[in-house]
């Protein structure tokens, strides 16, 4: 269905055509805003951003700075499968894989760099990760920097555990976690 809105384009009457009363009406609107805000600056919606932050609405929390989750034993959950690097539309992730000396099954990232100056905060890496190892829930919003180097996140910057993180306990990967959760063991 196409909805049609009928506009009543009646010709302007004399008072509207000389504009002055309409200009005065417009000035009253703007000067009302001026005086209300002058005497009640707290009523303005603007916040002093870097010092003062508004709580992020629900979905926006999942599009903040990246982090790499840790297992209970302190090793990164990431297995260096390159899924996120492949999925990334901005080519901002760089991974170099390494092997554990005692673990013949999994790899681990030796290098995990994210170039925030190229990142478009799309969250594709989070979607692509089969291990639930990368997340964008730190609530930090990447801001300005004085050099490009400051915008490059290395593995050390990324590895962190947030309080209340379910990855603190449990098995190595997501499927195992869900399996244990369904049995009521985690």
């Amino acid at each position, binding site marked *: 269905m196409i909805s049609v809105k009928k506009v009543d384009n009646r010709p302007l009457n004399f008072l509207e055509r000389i504009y*002055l009363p309409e*200009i005065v009406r*417009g*000035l009253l*609107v*703007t*000067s009302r*805003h*001026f005086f209300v*805000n*002058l005497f009640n*600056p707290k009523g*303005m*919606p*603007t916040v*002093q951003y870097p010092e003062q932050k508004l709580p992020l609405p629900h979905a926006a929390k999942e599009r903040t700075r990246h982090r790499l989750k840790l297992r209970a034993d302190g090793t990164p959950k990431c297995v260096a499968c390159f899924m996120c690097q492949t999925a990334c539309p901005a080519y901002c992730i760089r991974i170099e894989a390494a092997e554990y000396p005692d673990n013949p099954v999994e790899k681990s990232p030796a290098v995990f760099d994210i170039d925030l100056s190229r990142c478009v905060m799309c969250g594709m890496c989070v979607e692509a990760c089969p291990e639930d190892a990368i997340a964008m829930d730190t609530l930090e919003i990447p801001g300005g920097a004085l050099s490009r180097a400051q915008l490059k996140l290395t593995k050390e910057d990324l590895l962190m555990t947030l309080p209340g993180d379910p990855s603190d306990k449990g098995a190595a990967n997501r499927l195992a976690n869900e399996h244990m959760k369904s049995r009521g063991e985690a």
Partner: protein
Amino acid sequence: MMELLEANKDMLLFTGAAVLKIGVFLNAIMGFAGLLTLAERKVSALMQDRIGPNRASVFGFAFNGLFHPAADGIKMILKEDFVPGRADKLLFTLAPFFALVPVLALFAVIPFGDYVMVFGYQLDLVIAEIPLSLFLVLALSGIAIYGVFLGGWASRSNFALLGALRGAAQMVSYEVVLGLTLVGLLMIFGTASLQDLVRAQGRLLFGWLPAWGVVVQPFAFILFFVAAIAENKRTPFDLVEGESEIIGYFMEYSSMRFAAFMFSEFVEIILVSMLSATLFFGGWQVPYLYESGFILPGGAQFPLNHYLIAALQTGAFAAKTVAFSWLLLVIRWSLPRFRFDQLMGLCWKRLLPLALLNILLTGAVLLFLGKI
């Protein structure tokens, strides 16, 4: 030596007083113009529910943005002073002066108070008391067009030249209206000296209404104010420069040369405010305040000290100036811009006939009242 001083005492006192008045008045205007650059941003911010600039700080004290004019000035001085290779160097350098100097010179004839008695001498509170100062105002504001046109012409840039053409056409057109709207005042008050105009506005009509210009010529005030905003090249008539979209006559200018053009616009805001206050809102007049003190219409008298009266009158003039400057800022941030043909149409097809009609009606009323 002493004899020489004694012989030329009046001359020396006159010179000293003039230098003092110029120093105080001009510095007040420059300071106010600097503050206006901040006020423009703060007022627009508050009108749009924003906070406005508040980050420039000295030793961590920001005073809600008070240092921004200083920061802007320092930034302007430190920027590269670039002159295009094909520009006419002399005219390119002269243009900012032509924009700024006539506007500043105009303040010489604006009365900011009646007079004060200092050591038995009468000190007029106007820098230069000229019998035909109203015409000097019109003449000098005509010279300001040279700043606009030379700026566009000397940069040898086609865009700047187009901006200059628009600017010159607009300013020349509105100059005519600006002059014609004031004829009614000249007919009523019979003087072209701004100081005498203000003194004449201290009279009362019907025993209680101050004979301010806006009371006797309300229609002329609206026309004058519209033409003055257009002459000042501010929104809604700012298509000379059109900061946001179109390119203006000072396109090739940078650094302090650009700042001179920008600053002259803010000084012109003060000038237009002061002229509106002087011509139509009684200048330094406070209603019912005379040389001896307040005399209310009922006959009640409140004698006041001479210096207190002078301070009150100068304060009233300052308050009127600030109020008009605020109004100009609010108008600039409320109204959209005209199209160029609408701008010219408004001037030649609407304002000019209305100004002529105003002269005719004023003359008819004066004739009817038997004042001519």
